[in-house]
């Protein structure tokens, strides 16, 4: 990860949410997760089923949510103990992209106000023409022209256009890391691939690392270098795309990869008996491995205590008692 501290690092981060009438009961939406991004530009994917805590993790990394346990470091400094000037640098270098393009820009303002404000805040340009030139050049990089969006509000643009504008806004801050929470799941399949290709260009041409959060494994394998599989708030496997494709370690990862619909594996996909019984909230509150209720290899050890992340091969980590020594 290079000599200097990584641009962004989460160390043993946990976040508890309350439920029930008066919020008396708590469950860990994110449970002791460590992750570091920065150094060589990479696309790192956080993949998992809906409700596994990946969006919460994104908000923790972006500094929108305060962790209940553990710390989030920006270049070695705790983001919740920073003065506003440093915080502004953190905001500049770690930019978000959200899922719903129609909810990304303030509905009552033309979307260019966000673009203009980003340039003024982080770019230092002040004259009107300079700002517009900068915006126009970045917009063309994402396949839009300034006239497409001049004076227009969110309601007057399409989902695809808005998402490209959202990417442009993030690029205008010249970030080091972009955290994209399900950026393409609301875009039509035929347009989705163009935006994924755009992410790859951003990584290669602008040397920006991207934390890509998704439930769609197919897109994850298409563009990412590293994939982390998340289940009920914990990271159960982390490795390169090749490792996960060829030798997935955790039983849940195998199941996830096999369950991605592919018309070439028709009969096996339909026949195998798959278990999906337990109630979500209960799985979050399990002390040991969170997958124990569904895992065909479950042992008492799994129910008792949490399997640590073990390096099964170079850069490939798995949290499962099948691999770790108790």
């Amino acid at each position, binding site marked *: 990860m290079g000599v200097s501290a990584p641009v962004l690092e989460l160390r043993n981060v946990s976040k508890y949410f309350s439920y029930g009438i008066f919020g008396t009961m708590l469950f860990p939406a994110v449970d002791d997760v460590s992750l570091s991004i920065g150094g060589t530009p990479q696309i790192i994917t956080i993949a998992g089923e809906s409700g596994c805590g990946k969006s919460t993790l994104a908000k923790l990394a972006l500094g929108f949510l305060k962790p209940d346990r553990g710390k989030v470091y920006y270049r070695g400094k705790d983001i919740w103990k920073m003065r506003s000037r440093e915080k502004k640098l953190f905001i500049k270098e770690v930019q978000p992209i959200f899922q719903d393009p129609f909810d*990304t820009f303030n509905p009552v303002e033309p979307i260019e106000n966000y673009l203009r404000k980003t340039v003024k*805040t982080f770019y230092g340009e002040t004259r009107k023409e300079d700002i517009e030139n900068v915006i126009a050049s970045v917009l063309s990089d994402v396949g839009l022209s300034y006239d497409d969006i001049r004076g227009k509000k969110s309601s007057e643009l399409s989902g695809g256009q808005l998402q490209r504008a959202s990417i442009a806004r993030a690029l205008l801050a010249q970030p080091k890391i972009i955290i994209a929470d399900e950026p393409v799941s609301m875009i039509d399949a035929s347009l989705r691939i163009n935006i994924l290709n755009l992410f790859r260009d951003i990584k290669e041409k602008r040397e920006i690392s991207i934390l890509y959060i998704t439930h769609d494994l197919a897109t994850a394998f298409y563009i990412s270098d590293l994939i982390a599989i998340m289940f009920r708030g914990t990271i159960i496997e982390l490795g390169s795309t090749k490792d996960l494709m060829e030798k997935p370690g955790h039983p849940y990862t195998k199941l996830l990869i096999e369950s991605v619909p592919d018309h070439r594996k028709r009969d096996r996909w339909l026949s195998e008996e798959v278990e999906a019984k337990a109630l979500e909230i209960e799985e979050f509150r399990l002390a040991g491995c969170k997958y124990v209720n569904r895992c065909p290899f479950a042992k008492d050890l799994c129910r008792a205590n949490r399997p640590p992340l073990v390096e099964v091969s170079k850069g490939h980590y798995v949290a499962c008692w099948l691999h770790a020594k108790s």
Partner: protein
Amino acid sequence: MSYILMNRRLIGLVAFILAMVIVAFVGPYFNPYKVEPQRWNYVPKDRPPSMEYPFGTTTLGQDVLWLTIYARRESFAMGFITAAISIDISLIVGSLAAYVRSPVASEVVASVIDAFCVMPLLPILITISLLWKQQLNPIFIGVILGVLGWGGFARIIRAALLSLQERPFVYVAKASGYGFFDLLIKVYTPQVIGWLIVAFINRIIFAIGMEASLGLFGLTSLNRASIGSIIHWSLTYQAFLRGIWWWYTFPIVLVVVTVVVLYLIVFELQKSLRRGVTL
């Protein structure tokens, strides 16, 4: 504002209310009598409506037409004060309840807000009016109603701000460098302004209603021309039994028309706000 211009019915209602407000505040300058209408015996008593006295006269020698006009002014003045004060308190407490960090503290503030919704305001209002009987005037009543009647809107503000905080465009605004004031003016206010206007009008209706009730208990500004004092004096002098119907009919009809039109505006606005149309 685009939605409002399109909705013809809304424009009609708003125009009607504006006309009433103008008549209420400009009318008094054209008062033919040298004295304020609530004074006694400046016209012959108990005259039914006629050309000379369109709304008739009261047993106390007052001209009901000018009494009604002055009463409208009192109602609107008091209503505006109540609305202004209660809206401010709602905004402060509502946003406090939304922004307080710990969930327990947030629930406690929420309970305090609920307390102001659940509490029966009339008995408290009567106690205050009784103890401050000498100083009673519409401004004073307006202030009390404002300080006591902010519960409902505070709930709406708390709910609106809590859900607004989670909206992506708020996060993206912060990531684009929007400071506190940018957020407040450009992002939060447009989302809340619609509900603010609805609450403002609701509080005017609330104030008019409460003042009328105070009149029934004889605890309103009896030396002013307000709907409450008209009700009080007409009750005291048994206007109902003696058949002097014009003494209370014209003022009450005008009050009813005012509050009904005001509420129709509220209803129309709420319908559009629920469909997510921000003004």
